[in-house]
């Protein structure tokens, strides 16, 4: 079973849809059906035929607003007690990270937070893998209670299944109004475009000083890439928190991830290790990011960036000339 989260714009969240796909794969290994339970205040605008699940259960109640989790905890508790799933997955969005522990406490079951990989063994035991503190380790965790419950980092596990349209069932619920009241709110920032970027230039402490940032901004612009960073740069305010890749930032899987002056701590790598191609530019050939990179450039970050910029500018200049030639003919 997967929680279907509805965003403030009234749409089923992308993270939930992605997670439903993951759940389908697990369900097919276990030869069981997968269900998405959507808890919502209004009926959804979007068609639910495309949700990757065998069944979609829509639980509707006026108190199920996207802002407050109390009602969602109650609705999900009902759904779980009703269907008794063997596995329950929730996206580790801010809302999911509030819902999951509260629900786990009510159901009196264990919970593994922020998983980056999931698997089931022959006995149907969910192997829940997450980064563990203290450096270069991942931990696989199992639960002794049912449902086996985990939150999953949005974007960390990618799965692509195609299924026939799900059976859709809707139910109205009567839930009491929550005790915490939402007064008002505002959107802080536009979500960064990093999540969908094809090419990402990521910068770390090895880029030197804040003055060098213009070089990398220019580089990203010329390459049509999005700019991301490691945590120290977000901490220092050189870049926005939303651009931070890693355990306490975002998880992305671009076609190319090009890391300038990033050491590649485990906390950083969990945010990018599903990228198709990783290029690392680092003075230290032993840096962890170099160990995992497809292309390991042992050189100064600013030197390489400047060189790429001049190559691109030259190319642009060149094609300009060629275009003029073409026009003359």
């Amino acid at each position: 079973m997967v929680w279907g989260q509805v965003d403030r714009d009234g749409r089923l969240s992308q993270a939930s849809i992605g997670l439903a796909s993951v759940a389908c794969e697990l369900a097919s290994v276990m030869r069981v059906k997968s269900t998405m339970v959507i808890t919502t205040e209004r009926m959804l605008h979007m068609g639910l035929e495309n949700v990757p699940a065998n069944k979609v259960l829509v639980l509707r109640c006026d108190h199920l607003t996207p802002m407050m989790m109390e009602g969602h905890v109650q609705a999900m508790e009902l759904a779980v007690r009703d269907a008794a799933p063997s596995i329950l997955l929730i996206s580790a969005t801010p809302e999911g990270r509030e819902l999951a522990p509260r629900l786990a406490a009510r159901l009196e079951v264990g919970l593994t937070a922020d998983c980056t990989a999931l698997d089931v063994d022959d006995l149907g035991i969910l192997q829940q893998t997450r980064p563990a503190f203290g450096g270069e380790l991942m931990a696989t965790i199992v639960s002794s209670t049912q449902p086996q419950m985990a939150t999953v980092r949005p974007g960390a596990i990618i799965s692509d299944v195609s299924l026939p349209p799900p059976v859709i069932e809707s139910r109205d619920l009567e839930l009491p109004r929550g005790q915490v009241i939402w007064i008002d709110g505002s959107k802080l920032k536009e979500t960064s475009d990093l999540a969908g970027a094809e090419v990402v230039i990521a910068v770390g402490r090895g880029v030197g000083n804040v003055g060098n940032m213009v070089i990398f901004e220019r580089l990203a612009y010329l390459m049509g890439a999005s700019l991301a960073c490691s945590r120290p740069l977000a901490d220092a305010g050189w870049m926005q928190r939303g651009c931070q890749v890693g355990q306490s930032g975002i998880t992305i899987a671009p076609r190319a991830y090009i890391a300038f002056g990033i050491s590649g701590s485990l906390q950083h790598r969990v945010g990018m290790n599903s990228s198709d191609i990783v290029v690392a530019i680092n003075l230290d050939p032993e840096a962890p990011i170099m160990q995992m990179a497809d292309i390991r450039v042992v050189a100064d970050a600013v030197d390489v960036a400047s060189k790429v910029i001049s190559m691109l500018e030259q190319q642009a200049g060149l094609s300009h000339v060629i275009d003029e030639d073409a026009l003359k003919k």
Partner: protein
Amino acid sequence: MTRMVVLVKQVPEPGTVTMDRETGRLVRGSAPAMLNPYCENALELGLQLMDENDELIAISMGPPATKAALRRCLELGATGAVLLADPGLAGSDARATAIALAAAIRSCVPDVDLVLTGKQAMDGDTAQVPGMLAEVMGLPVAYDVIKATWVEDGIEVMRSSGEYMDRLLVPAHSLLAVGRGSMIRRLPSISDLLRSRELKVSTISLVDIGLTPAMVGSKGSATRVVRLFSPEVKRKGIIIMNVEEGAAMVLEAAHLDRGEEAG
């Protein structure tokens, strides 16, 4: 008079902890320790909410060395401090921790109004304990709190989570999980320091709060680490030692087609 409890955790300084590959537990050893930054924010919020006769009791669960973190809370203005220490607590997962903390609060501050916690600990980073604790105690909860002020019918709270900043009204009897925020850390004043000398960190164990080791610790935990490993990497690993070639490879990688990529 308002009675508040702030739950604090002592965490190792980043980068000083290893994990026991056999048991899957953190080996803290003699690593230097600090007050979890989110907990320090929670303490600060409590101090801001505190009026003259109010109480703010800091409670922590951890090994005896955690006393240092609680002493620091007293110096900063907490009016009392309690350490829950017991060998039976070792290996507690988030839910066992929530059960133990709820029992500690029930027996030390039975008439508590407001419970404050950090939203997550820097070492585990799971952010599970506040929500679980609120449910075990039957309290309403607000996550990612960065500001709070008393109003007539409760507490007005600013919540900063993900893309949104929200204003919430929370009952006076509730749990606030405090987030990052831009709270100014205070240094202890001379009078606080003098006052805190009179105060003691009291220590309690499982029997004092009516729990048995079977209910908490590794026995009372539903989750268990079964495997620890280094993330494996299966990548090509071409090494380039000069700037020109490196720059060319950067461009090539960026323009490679998904289909052309070697599996």
